[in-house]
């Protein structure tokens, strides 16, 4: 599993670099389980902007869905988190939601810094 996460971090970084034709840095990829019973994957990203995600939304969604599937994690919610007051994307997440979080996040913008790509 350790090697899989290491390889996947590298692979998704290469995916973004190839997709956008410029340097994108995925500094960290986390596979997590929350106390509430949500599970998911969180990517810490630098160099990506909201426009990039909107233009390549379908390709990015496909890639994230495949990534989630490879960990047997549901892709109930796929989202990005932006740096407040900017167009910089700083996190990309895929999350299998518990009932409470589903209620909280079922919006296009559940919080001003979160943008749902798929819910």
């Amino acid at each position, binding site marked *: 599993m350790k090697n899989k996460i290491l390889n996947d971090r590298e692979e998704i970084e290469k995916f973004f670099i190839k997709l956008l034709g410029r340097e994108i840095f995925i500094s960290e990829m986390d596979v997590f389980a929350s106390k509430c019973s949500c599970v998911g994957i969180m990517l810490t990203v630098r160099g990506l902007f909201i426009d990039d995600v909107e233009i390549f939304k379908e390709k990015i969604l496909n890639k994230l869905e495949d990534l989630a599937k490879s960990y047997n994690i549901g892709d109930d919610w796929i989202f990005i988190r932006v740096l*407040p007051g900017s167009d910089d994307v700083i996190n990309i997440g895929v999350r299998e939601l518990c009932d409470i979080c589903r209620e*909280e*996040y079922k919006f296009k913008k559940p919080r001003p810094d979160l943008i749902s790509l798929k819910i």
Partner: protein
Amino acid sequence: MFSIPHPGNFESLKIIVDEINKLRRINKKLRKESFEVYMGFPEFIGTGRATLYKPNFEDLAKQVAYTKKNNIRFEVVINASCIGGIHLTPKGISYINWIFSQLKNIGIDSVALSDPYLVDLAKNNGLDVNVSCIALVDSLDKAMFWDEKEVYAITLDSSINRHFDIIQEIKENVTCKLKILVNEACLYKCPMRIQHFNFFSHVNAQNIPALDDYYYNKCINLRIKKKELIIKSPFIRPEDLKHYKNLVDIFKISGRSHPIGWIKRVINAYLSERWDGNLMELLDCPRELEHFYYLDNRALDGAIEQWKSCNKLCSKCNFCKELAENALKVKG
């Protein structure tokens, strides 16, 4: 009146207004109730909480017009606890005056501030001022200081939420409205309160690359170590609002940095004055523990009678500790 947290973007505002209008339709009592929304506005002045969106003046003007159409007040929060002295420089004064004049032109109903100098500038610009809870008004003397500035309202320091005698004394001696935070569950008399607000004030406004929020992490650790701290934190349950109705004018729901789904849930509970289930799900801070602790709201029925007469000499009383043992369980 209820003061409702607004994360700042128009999409969220529409969801909040829809929710208020829905509740007005189904609950007769709420038809006579008045409402305001409040949102952070982090210019270089900053605010006391994480602010996740910074609207421009055009966006803000549209939002204000929308709330007015729905008969809802609009308050902007600029309540940094530290501005680093910039506000007292000639450039700082001009800039803040410019911001206040823009807010006045847009039609903002009031601005929440914690600095007396900013209050004077805002008043000079014709704005109504709500004194922020960050001004830590916990005594009559402090309340009188602000009341003499003819402010619209004072938000009391939540540390006195269960000091009914102090609230009563303030109520009897000021002319402005009193506002009380109902679900901000910070530590009672938190020793880190000022430092935490100072930290937020600067990281909000100046994009400081802070490594971690020491104060928040410490707060969570303390509550795991001593769970009675959760009971002692001065939240007010939805069912207990009635005990405050003759004392305060505005019930402020805390939580403008949370997801809109959470805000909807909390609005529903407080406007209906009823919540069955885990009270942790309504408390703004620290939300991280709502999945760890189950605080049975029904088990707290009647506790307010004890708190109303409590002298806060905790070493001589185990009421909150015993209540924590009975009402607060670690979730499986």
